[in-house]
């Protein structure tokens, strides 16, 4: 089977569905796929979803500097945000600092950015990492930039809703502190997910394929959304769609 859509298009469509019902989503730096997905959901909901893209001029209506994102989150005015990680473990802990012993890490990444705050405060944090390998999805992260779950007395209205990779979508259960495999992307298998995932996760007997984007969604992505995301990510816009 040779699908009529690219992996990026599939991921854009999946994330757009996850954003249904949100009022405001903020997209951080270096996040073209979440950015396109947010714009898609905004189009589908006829503007019900407000989209802020950090690094964009057109999709950023902030007037209080860099702190405004964090103040909005504290006020409950951001419903969804995206975080990634050089390592992500089965309890939803994320590592944006590096591998090995801190601070002279074997591999050092840029740093925690806003994760040590937004992961706690934004109700729907979508973990997004295209690379789905045992290198990234590890049993235990080497450094917790931000934890997946907190003790009951810790103020935490936010946290992970799930993990989307280039191979699959997992939901996250805060009570059991585990991921559950919800769907496998077309052309991939549960066996492949098991091979490539370094942590244990819940897996139902039957795992569906991730729903492919409908033709009208693909048309929208390739038309208006591609134009809109080009303002912030021109290179991505010219290459991501089939």
């Amino acid at each position, binding site marked *: 089977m040779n699908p009529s859509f690219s992996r990026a298009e599939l991921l854009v469509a999946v994330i757009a569905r996850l954003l249904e019902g949100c009022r405001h989503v903020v997209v951080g730096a270096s996040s073209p796929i979440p950015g396109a997905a947010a714009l898609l959901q905004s189009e589908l909901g006829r503007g019900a979803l407000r989209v802020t893209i950090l690094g964009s001029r057109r999709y950023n209506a902030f007037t209080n500097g860099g702190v405004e994102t964090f103040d909005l989150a504290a006020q409950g005015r951001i419903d969804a945000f995206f975080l990634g990680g050089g390592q992500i473990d089965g309890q939803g802990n994320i590592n944006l600092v590096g591998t090995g012993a801190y601070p002279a890490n074997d591999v050092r990444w840029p*740093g925690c950015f806003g994760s040590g705050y937004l992961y706690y405060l934004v109700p729907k944090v979508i973990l997004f990492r295209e690379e789905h390998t045992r290198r990234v999805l590890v049993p235990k992260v080497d450094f917790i930039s931000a934890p997946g779950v907190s003790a009951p007395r810790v103020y935490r209205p936010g946290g992970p809703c799930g993990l989307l990779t280039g191979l699959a979508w997992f939901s996250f259960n805060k009570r059991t502190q585990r991921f559950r495999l919800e769907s496998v992307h077309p052309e991939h298998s549960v066996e492949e997910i098991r091979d490539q995932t370094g942590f244990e996760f819940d897996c139902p007997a039957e795992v569906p394929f991730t729903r492919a984007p409908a033709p009208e969604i693909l048309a929208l992505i390739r038309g208006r959304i591609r134009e809109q995301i080009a303002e912030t990510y021109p290179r991505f816009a010219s290459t991501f769609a089939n």
Partner: protein
Amino acid sequence: MNQQPICELADLAAAVPDGAQLVVPSDNCGVAMAATRELLRRGVSGLHLVCVPTSGLQAEILIGAGAIATLETSAVTLGEFGPAHRFIDALKNARVRMLDATCPAVHAALQAGQKGLPFIPLRGLIGSDLLSSRADWKVIDNPFSPGDPIVLLPAINPDIALFHAPLADRAGNVYIGRWRELLTMAHASKQTFVTVEAISERDLFEDAKLAPGVVPAIYISRIALASQGAWPIGLPGHYGADETAISRYVQSAKTEEGFRRFVDEWLGETTTANA
């Protein structure tokens, strides 16, 4: 406040003492790169660099040149251009003292500084290794609602804030637009040094549209004219990043020798932009 803030770029750089706590903005709101090259020319050392809340090429080059003793930041990133090789190398070899942070913590600590408060509480952080790594951050129980642990951050009051802006006037008022973190940096710091694209003969407060985006002269110690002063980083609304120059830097900086050659060449140039 300085009644005669306008000076030459070299004088501005000379007024940054070795060992100063220097606060700088992220790449999207005016990085004083011409001034950074001038600091390298004068061989500045021992800086405590605070990045609001992240940095890119500016931190990377200062680290590579051995100018940084302590680095306090939420990230050092060159984005799609590739790894910040000198930053990574310096951490691996323990050549800088690293204070990892999270973006709102840097903003909040400066806000405490601008208000003259000793510390400020911040949500999040509890249960992270980031918090464990910061001996200067404490957890207390909320005194108004016991059973609610919350992190306290000490205020940051830098010696000098340094950034690049589009416009200043002769009296020392500086236009920053909506990049309000620059205002917070100026409020919290003992002195503020600014490089600008242009100096207006007209008082910026005479224009009602500009006035709300002005850092008043009371906070400003030095202003130097530096055309294309953020190059090779961009200045939003004025010019973009010089992608060729930054890519060439990233290639060169893979090794210590490559970095040295690149910087020597860079500092040797009499004009930078459009060279």
